[in-house]
């Protein structure tokens, strides 16, 4: 099980180089990070996975982008929008993570989308920057939305990932702090451990339901 921060933004999107983010991640207890627009590699014992964040595009463009980068070994994540968009994205083979559910509308992720996510092994991302950096109404809304996601997760058992969306070292948090912040949305320690390993779970090849022995 690899403890992974599912989204960080190194230079030039952020103010820290990917090596420095990897060093900091190692100090904070992570085994790997998903870095946007960065080649994969290992720095300071931390595996850096290349991430592709797709946002503000129609479903057609999402499908073509997924086709293009399917075999590139990238972690492909799509920004959530309305319900029909999210269902279409979850149904697209090759999409790993659905992000930004806290900023989508209230009905963007319902029980049908949750069932589809569980069947297609698409993770829903919990963006902790909304809790860390948000204040008053925006934070309350994010906490409420995440609690709702966790209710669906308990029922349908779709993968969940945790990310800090760090654009700086100062946005990253220790794994211990992550567990504390996740307790605000009703996640206990096993839930947090499972969510921190969520990226590895969605990237692992699916187990076959039936194994032919001979």
């Amino acid at each position: 099980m690899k403890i992974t921060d599912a989204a960080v933004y190194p230079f030039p999107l952020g103010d820290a180089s990917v090596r420095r983010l990897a060093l900091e991640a190692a100090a904070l207890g992570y085994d790997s990070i998903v870095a946007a627009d960065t080649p994969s590699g290992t720095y300071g014992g931390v595996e850096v996975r290349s991430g592709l964040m797709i946002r503000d595009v129609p479903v057609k463009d999402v499908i073509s982008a997924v086709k293009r980068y399917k075999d590139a070994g990238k972690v492909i994540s799509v920004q959530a929008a309305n319900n029909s968009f999210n269902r279409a994205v979850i149904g697209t083979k090759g999409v790993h993570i659905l992000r930004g559910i806290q900023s989508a509308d209230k009905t963007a992720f319902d029980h049908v989308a949750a069932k589809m996510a569980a069947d297609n092994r698409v993770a829903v991302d919990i963006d902790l920057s909304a809790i860390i950096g948000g204040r008053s109404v925006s934070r309350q809304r994010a906490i409420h939305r995440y609690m709702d996601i966790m209710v669906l997760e308990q029922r349908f058992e779709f993968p969940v990932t945790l990310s800090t969306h760090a654009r700086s070292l100062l946005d990253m948090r220790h794994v211990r702090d992550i567990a504390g912040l996740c307790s605000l949305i009703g996640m206990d320690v096993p839930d947090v451990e499972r969510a921190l390993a969520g990226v590895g779970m969605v990237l692992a090849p699916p187990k076959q339901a039936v194994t032919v022995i001979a």
Partner: protein
Amino acid sequence: MSTRPPTLREKRRYILARIEPAGTQLEQKDLYYAISDATTTLWGDATTAIITPAVVALEHGHVVIRCRRGTERELAIALSTVTACRDVRICLRIIAASGTIESLRSRFRPKKIPKTKTQPGSEPETEKNPAGADAGIEPVQPACTFAKKTFQILHCNGQKVDVIEKGFKNTNRLFLTKDDLENLNATTISDRI
């Protein structure tokens, strides 16, 4: 007013946190307001009154925060939501919690190195680290190049290098490593790391 006997005093705990980025100059009062604000916005007035956060020490880039015993977890969660102090971006990395301040002080106070006697005839030891007062900090280089721009090195510790662009237009701090600087000094490396 006479002090209460120990059995009637409320039990307290102290949390030690490191302030990042290194070398940030903060006032104790400003930091208290930042922590109090973070605690109040997260937990509300009632719970903050129970936690009773207070900054009791701010030295050597570390802060000791006092809280009521049993509320360390709530305070720790609130501390992880501290992102700025007087418009200066900071982050508090919790190191330890203890029942006494002194045990925490021993964790961040620089240890005194006993002076060795110099042998007659040998040259006295020159000061190897004039810029960094703390142990473990390497001598600071004046400037470096990164992404075809000249930066001033603010802090250098091991592999970690914090730089700031020279000039008055862009004063954002960048967090790099020595490898980044070496690569970017080469002519074949692109702007992106």
